């Protein structure tokens, strides 16, 4: 499987184009071009491979055709609110492809190892065997983990409720150990590679399902980022299987990207990765809802909030997953345009874990033509709340809970939050006082400067547009 020097040169060029392309994503202005540059790299890599490799044309043409059709249909038809599901699917497909490639390599592992041995490259033979095992393990966990994540995000019936087996951690550890043992056996006895590989991939599949199955909706940003990283690592190990530099570089890039996003997501919840994957928030020690809210919650009507907004000089909107669920983003755009027209500055503050994946809210806002220079990160937004007349929270809860800052015994203590309570007035659009993912009451709702506007997100914002017009 030695590629030609020309192909190798093109592979190097492709790897450079991927790096250059990702660099374009560091600014919205250059991002479209960056993505195109990266796509050009991919085109070159595929063309170079078609040029030098010997393969079965029927299989290749059929696979490329079916894959292209499915890919185009998915990409064109997917709603922006469903982007987390889409990314979960794509993560899974990448991992799945790596598993299958390693499986094929396992089928011919003995012959390939003997060939390497007789050519005096024993080390290379072992490298391929180790890579086949790792690729199968990582790929299968990625594929099945991503399928479960997809099912949860799509809210398929069978994934509605999180469940876990008794002694789940022990079972996971045992499964992982068994996979590693089978992988080691594959390296020692390549004559059994096909069978050992199949058994290992099967156990790894179960592991992937069990790992993701117990993780709740609001922790999805972490899981998707982690699976993103795995899909890159799977590609890198495929590179070790076929001794190809470009796959290794590219896979490492994606792996690094996913790890960084995973860390950002964990930091934004002040939880360790291990806690997200194996722990869970303890519901203990939280004050009861009655103690926190008891007679102190003020509810407002659309007209009252409309008056506040009409008089405001600066409004910061804080979107949460609730905005996506009620499809309120178009109504939010109308409110934004109306207030801007009246001379009010409208900004959007996005918490890193708002929504179901990193940057989820920003995509929804961009879809309804909110300019990207109006979208602030948590660090940018927090100093501005003190000089803000109205902070409008739409469908967010835990990420604006001041207990995280002030109450060291709170389950979410230390989690960085958006300081909406520092604004002159906070208006929270929410259907009820029900708790967020952390399962704890939010003292913000009982604060002196907070008004609750109980309604469905979309209807509430539409009514506010009408009220501001009338004010």
């Amino acid at each position, binding site marked *: *499987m030695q590629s030609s020097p020309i192909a190798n040169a093109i*592979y190097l060029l492709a790897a450079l184009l991927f790096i250059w*392309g*990702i660099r374009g*994503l*560091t600014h919205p202005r250059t*991002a*479209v071009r960056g993505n195109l540059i*990266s796509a050009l790299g*991919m085109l070159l*890599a*595929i063309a170079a*491979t078609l040029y030098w490799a010997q*393969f*079965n044309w029927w*299989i*290749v043409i*059929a*696979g*490329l055709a*079916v*894959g*292209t059709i*499915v*890919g*185009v249909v998915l*990409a*064109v038809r997917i709603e922006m609110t469903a982007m987390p599901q889409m*990314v979960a699917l*794509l993560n899974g*497909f*990448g991992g*799945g*492809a790596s598993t*299958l*490639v390693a499986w*094929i390599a396992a*089928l011919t592992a003995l012959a390939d190892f003997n060939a390497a041995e007789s050519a005096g490259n024993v080390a290379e033979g072992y490298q391929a065997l180790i890579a086949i095992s790792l690729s199968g393990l990582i790929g299968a966990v990625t594929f099945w983990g991503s399928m479960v994540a997809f099912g949860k995000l799509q809210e398929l019936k069978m994934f509605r409720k999180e469940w876990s087996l008794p002694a789940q951690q022990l079972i996971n550890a045992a499964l992982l150990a068994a996979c590693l043992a089978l992988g080691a056996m594959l390296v020692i006895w390549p004559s059994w590679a096909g069978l050992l590989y199949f058994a290992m991939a099967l156990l790894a599949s179960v592991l992937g399902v069990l790992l993701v199955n117990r993780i709740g909706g609001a922790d999805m940003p972490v899981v998707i980022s982690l699976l*993103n990283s795995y*899909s890159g690592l799977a590609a*890198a190990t*495929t*590179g070790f299987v*076929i*001794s*190809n530099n*470009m*796959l290794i*570089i*590219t896979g*490492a*890039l994606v792996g690094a990207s996913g790890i*960084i*996003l995973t860390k*950002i997501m964990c930091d934004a919840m002040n939880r360790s990765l291990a806690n997200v994957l194996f722990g869970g928030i303890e519901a203990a020690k939280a004050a009861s809802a009655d103690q926190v809210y008891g007679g102190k919650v003020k509810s407002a009507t659309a007209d009252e909030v409309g008056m506040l907004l009409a008089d405001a000089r600066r409004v910061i909107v804080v979107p949460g997953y609730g905005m996506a669920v009620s499809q309120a983003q178009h109504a939010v755009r109308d409110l934004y345009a109306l207030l801007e027209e009246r001379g009010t500055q409208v900004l959007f503050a996005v918490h890193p874990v708002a929504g179901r*994946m990193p940057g989820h809210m*920003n995509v929804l806002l*961009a879809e309804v033509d909110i300019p*990207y*220079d109006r979208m602030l990160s948590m660090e940018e937004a927090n100093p501005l709340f003190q000089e803000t007349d109205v902070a409008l929270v739409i469908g967010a809860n835990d990420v604006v809970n001041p207990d995280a800052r002030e109450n060291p015994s709170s389950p979410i203590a230390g989690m960085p939050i958006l300081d909406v309570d520092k604004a002159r007035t906070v208006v929270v659009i929410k259907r009820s006082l029900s708790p967020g993912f952390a399962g704890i009451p939010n003292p913000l709702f009982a604060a002196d400067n907070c008004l609750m506007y109980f309604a469905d997100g979309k209807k509430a914002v539409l009514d506010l547009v009408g009220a501001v017009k009338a004010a």
Partner: protein
Amino acid sequence: MFIMLLTVFVLAIFVGFEIITKVPPTLHTPLMSGSNAISGITIVGALIVAHEHPGWLGGTLAFFAVTLATINVVGGYLVTHRMLGMFKRKG
């Protein structure tokens, strides 16, 4: 050979860390779908193992490997392009 490949792997991780920490939070979703499309590079592996005379099992596996990797590549780049086109400045 193995040491060289490992070196490349480690260096690439460092390059990745350097660039990706500079991507603003606003673009994290397109970053994921875009890097996802890039991880579809497994397609090169899938093409290489689609041997001329694969046997029924090898052939079936190769077909699905090429298909999944192609979905990853085509779907990933296209949806990223669609998303990025929505990010506009005021004016």
